């Protein structure tokens, strides 16, 4: 049955459950423009509807699907950035969910260090907490002297490494990762896979979007196909 979209925060969930999607659907709508048909079919695009999904505490959930099936959209929905147009998203109150993609809106003219502090604050950390984590970010990102250079001087790989390192340090309850394991050179990829493994074992819930189905089969507790 299709119900209008809503987000509900409640503790009334099965004990090991963090969040649940009930028949959710998302609709993208084109803006109005003079001289373009405004019929429903022409304006609306539904990447998915009637999706049912559960995330348990400590679970690693893989999400697979072809291009355009709404994998990134699903992660945004879980992150609370967009709300469903159909169905219900039920989650525990004050759940810290973090969407990790590689470019956390860096301020080009500021240094990696300054950006790390600011990105962390956007993710809900205080300035002090971020200051304490700076060394770890510096070390993990392997940026060396570039850590104090403005971000516009970074290569795209360096940017990605900085983003990944910040996100790992921001310490949420649920981590949503969108193709982040394809970041950086091979050496950094191995390292981030190691860090991922440690995260999975630390009891955090992780939702992982990847085209690397081999990796998902090996590491995820269950795989959801969109």
């Amino acid at each position: 049955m299709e119900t209008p979209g809503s987000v509900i925060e409640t503790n009334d969930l099965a004990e090991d459950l963090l969040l649940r999607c009930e028949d959710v659907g998302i609709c993208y709508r084109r803006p109005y423009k003079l001289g373009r048909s405004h019929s429903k079919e022409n304006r609306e695009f539904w990447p998915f509807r009637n999706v049912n999904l559960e995330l348990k505490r400590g679970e690693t959930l893989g999400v697979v699907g072809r291009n355009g099936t709404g994998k990134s959209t699903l992660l945004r929905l879980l992150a609370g950035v967009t709300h469903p147009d159909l169905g219900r998203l039920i989650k525990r109150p004050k759940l810290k969910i973090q969407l990790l993609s590689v470019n956390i809106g860096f301020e080009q003219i500021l240094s990696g260090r300054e950006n790390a502090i600011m990105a962390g604050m956007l993710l809900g950390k205080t300035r002090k907490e971020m200051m304490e984590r700076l060394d770890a970010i510096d070390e993990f990102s392997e940026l060396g002297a570039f850590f104090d250079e403005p971000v516009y001087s970074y290569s795209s790989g360096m940017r990605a490494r900085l983003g990944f390192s910040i996100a790992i340090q921001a310490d949420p309850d649920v981590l949503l990762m969108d193709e982040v394991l394809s970041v950086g050179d091979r050496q950094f990829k191995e390292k981030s896979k190691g860090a991922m493994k440690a995260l999975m074992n630390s009891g955090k819930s992780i939702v992982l979007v990847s085209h690397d189905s081999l990796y998902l089969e090996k590491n995820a507790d269950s795989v959801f196909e969109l």
Partner: protein
Amino acid sequence: MIEFFKTLYQYRGILFYRTIASLRADTRAMYLGYLWWFLEPILNTALYYFIFGVLLGIKTPDFIAYLLSGTVIYQWYQSSIVGTMGTITARAHLYRQIPLPKYLFGIIGVCSSSWKSGCVFLVMLVYISLTSGLTLGVHLLWLPLLVIIQILLISGFSIVLSIASAYFRDLQTFTSVLFRAGMFLSAIFWDVAKVPEHLKTLFYSNPSAALIQVYRSILLHGESPSGGLLLYLTGLSLILIQLGMLWHRRIDGHILKHIQT
């Protein structure tokens, strides 16, 4: 309304550091850096003085102070509001990642342009007190209140227009026309006493005209400002903030699906 102030308090750290960052990013990119904050209003005032004072012979008492106060206040008002439009689209990559109130970067824009204009405003105060002599008195106590009202007014516009301009890009072009009209209609470079009596209400319904008039009565005439105008500006600010917040609640979880970025 209360929700708005609660949100500001909750995000105060981000507001503070993002404002500093945007000021720094602004000035690092330019050769003359911070100097531009002061050069721009001075150049504008000089231009207006030449056109309206010298060529057209418009005179009010203390014409330079009159021009300067109008220019500085109007620029504060305009640059804050114009700067806020398009922030949702410009920051979409961030809003797509972290659930943040969608007016956050608009308010950061208001903070940084208010900081800039506030510095210029202080310099203008020094100039006025050195040349025409600022009359000391109880009326000066209105000044801090007025600054607060002005920032509230700009914030109200910011919330409403940042959302509106995300849905209708046309609005950005349209407001640039509106602001040009507003500049001529705010008596920045002509004598406000020339407005005919029966059009005064209409003239002061333009918020920037009311704002400039209130500032001038304190700074140039040494009087307490008109209660009616103050009340109008305060009321308008609170209504805009309230409307903006109601609208924001409706669109918060959906706007990113419906706009072009």
